């Protein structure tokens, strides 16, 4: 056991800090800090800066243009990036599709799509959930029928995050309706400019347009866009979901959010004294902080095991459940801290808007984030599904 960073890790951390100081535009950092919506250009700009340094695809092998960082290095970057209020890396191409293509795609697919993910030529979104297939993803119905050199796709996907910016979508589609659900699913790459693809916005409860519905009507997709083998898509989907989950504890994001709560508690007056001196409020803060300290080490233990070749299993599910609950608890503290100033609706206070929403504690849209982040215990496999996985795996090992 050794909890300290090596000299090499410390040198890497300094390198990351220097990079952030040099490349992160203060105006962008301020937008992130205040929880404002980033534009597509904002996100592309940040990706381009990371790509220029070779740091965009952090978990990809070097042969595909990745940084091939260790789990520790990825964790250091995440911590520093959140501390500096850098935009997060949009995960759909880089963290999700990339690893699937590298493991299951053919050479032509790898040569064509991977460089385009790095350059930003393509913006990918994820076509998994459907109105009738949420937690029960394998019941998905979007149908792909082979017709010569094409598949004809019909159906509907939903909760498509940032789909309004995307030109490509990777989809789970049903290619065989007559077998066990999991055995009739294929993994298809679809150009969203193809006739028959329609994107409709979903407005969330905080007023933001973040997710979409994507409708497919007789959409013709060339067969070379099938990844791996027909009807093996469920295997690839599960592989992708384990990648989606490795960073799901959100330790960096929670740490930054908790720092903000502490700062606000010093600025807020409560019964004549700073809120930071209120024992009831600070006991709430302390309980979360103690859990976060333990979660951070739990997370490091799991990524160290994953780095040594172990597959993330029930620990990933545990991190997802605990990480989401801690993050939501911090959001709850933030809205409590600002008292009556939690009531104003800051959704209109996006860039270009002059709505005078009072923000006396300089924290941005605390309430909007609070409601928006209810999603993190729902998406990527709800906490109920994660608990099923934990119990099933643990009990299965004893049968």
């Amino acid at each position, binding site marked *: 056991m050794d909890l300290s960073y090596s000299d090499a890790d410390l040198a890497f951390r300094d390198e990351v800090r220097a990079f952030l100081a040099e490349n992160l535009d203060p105006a962008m950092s301020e937008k992130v800090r205040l929880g404002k919506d980033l534009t597509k250009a904002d996100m592309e700009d940040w990706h381009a800066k990371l790509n220029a340094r070779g740091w965009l695809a952090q978990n990809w092998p070097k042969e595909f243009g990745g940084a091939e960082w260790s789990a520790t290095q990825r964790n250091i970057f995440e911590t520093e990036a959140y501390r500096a209020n850098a935009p997060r890396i949009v995960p759909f191409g880089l963290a999700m599709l990339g690893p699937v293509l590298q493991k299951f795609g053919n050479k032509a697919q790898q040569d064509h799509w991977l460089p385009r993910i790095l350059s930003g030529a393509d913006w990918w979104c994820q076509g998994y959930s459907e109105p009738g297939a*949420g937690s029960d993803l394998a019941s998905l119905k979007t149908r792909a029928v082979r017709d010569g050199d094409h598949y004809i796709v019909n159906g509907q996907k939903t909760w498509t995050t940032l789909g309004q910016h995307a030109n490509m979508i990777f989809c789970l589609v049903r290619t065989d309706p007559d077998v066990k659900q999991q055995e009739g699913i294929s993994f298809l790459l679809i150009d969203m400019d193809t006739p028959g693809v329609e994107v409709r916005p979903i407005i969330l*409860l905080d007023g933001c347009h973040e997710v979409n519905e994507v409708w497919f009507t007789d959409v013709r997709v060339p067969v070379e866009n099938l990844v791996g083998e027909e009807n093996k898509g469920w295997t690839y989907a599960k592989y992708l979901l384990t990648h989606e989950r490795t960073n799901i504890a959100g330790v960096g994001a929670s740490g930054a959010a908790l720092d903000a709560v502490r700062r606000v508690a010093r600025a807020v007056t409560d019964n004549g004294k700073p809120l930071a001196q209120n024992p009831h409020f600070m006991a709430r803060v302390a309980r979360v902080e103690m859990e976060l300290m333990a979660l951070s080490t739990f997370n490091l233990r799991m990524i160290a095991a994953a780095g040594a070749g172990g597959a993330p299993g029930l620990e990933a599910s545990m991190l997802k459940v605990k990480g989401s609950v801690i993050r939501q608890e911090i959001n709850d503290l933030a809205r409590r801290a600002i008292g*009556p100033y939690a009531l*104003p609706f800051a959704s209109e206070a996006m860039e270009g808007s002059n709505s005078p929403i009072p923000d006396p504690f300089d924290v941005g849209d605390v309430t909007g984030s609070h409601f928006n982040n209810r999603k993190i215990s729902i998406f990527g496999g709800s906490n109920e599904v994660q608990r099923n996985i934990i119990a099933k795996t643990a009990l299965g090992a004893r049968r």
Partner: protein
Amino acid sequence: MNFDLTEERQMLSDTLRRYLADKYDTKTRNEILTSEAGFSAEIWSQMADLGVIGALFTEDLGGFGGGGFDIAVVFEELGRAGVVEPFLDCAVLAGGLIDDLANAEQMEMVSGLIWGQVQLAFAHGEPQSRYDIADVQTQVATAGDEVALTGRKAVVVNAEAADQLVVSAKEGDGVSLFLVNPMANGVTVQGYPLISGGRAAEVTLENAPATRLGAAGAALPVIETMMARATVAQMAECLGAMSTAVDLTQDYLITRQQFGRPLATFQALQHRLADMLTELELARSALINAAGHLEADPMERDRQISAAKSLFGRVGRLIAEESIQMHGGIAMTQEYELAHIAKRIVMADHRFGDEDWHLERFIALSAA
């Protein structure tokens, strides 16, 4: 003991529930939410005709109620439908203060209010005061009969629509109340929408002309009484909203199929629903405690109210979060009824003192 509503209150409750079920669906309400005014003048006037405002005032003022359980009955129905029109701020708070303190001439406003023709707002909280009722820094300057106010009032609900503002200010060692015309020189009203619906404003007063409401320096006990009534109103509203959240969740669990069967057949979810139902009944009982003590001596009244309001903070959070979680993504969307209802429930914790503030006041009042 008798926990039944009187016949009049039951009728009012039934009428109001039928009216809102008929006239205030999700689509109508969401259009009101995004409208410039933030409330519907038509709904306001129809509800005044139904007696919603009158039920909040006593008979000698032209009303037909005014007791704690009258308030509770009205606001539970408003909460059930997620009504955003500012009955609480306009009628219970500002109207209640005028009713209690006004001279004969000022009293005319109350009958206008009851019939839906007058809009009012109570400008009391300040940027530094958070939930502290006694922390008032707005200054009074008097010259002969002339009075002028200088200060800033925070998150004043309904300020933009108000014909008159009831404004608190520090005077000597006490707090005084005044009427201020929001159109007068020296008054700036900077409005914005609220996340749970309706609108509020930051109100800045710079030597703003004011008319005295009640005696100098003597308003704090009256403000505390109206705050107690408003807290009961708001808990009742929250109770109605929580009932809707639990109803919607039950319907969804029965209807929604995953893994080839209704969600309602999963025991893990059944137990969580059972907890929500139990906590809801606990909250209803806490509200009855609070409403039944509105006429008690102020210390016992406030101890009862704090016990209930702190409980509402805890239960409200549980029910809002569990309803959303047990629905999944659909509850995150603006067009689904629960999204608005959950925001009403959580934001109820941000008015008249939150869970922790009332916990502390309960401890202090229990020790006294």
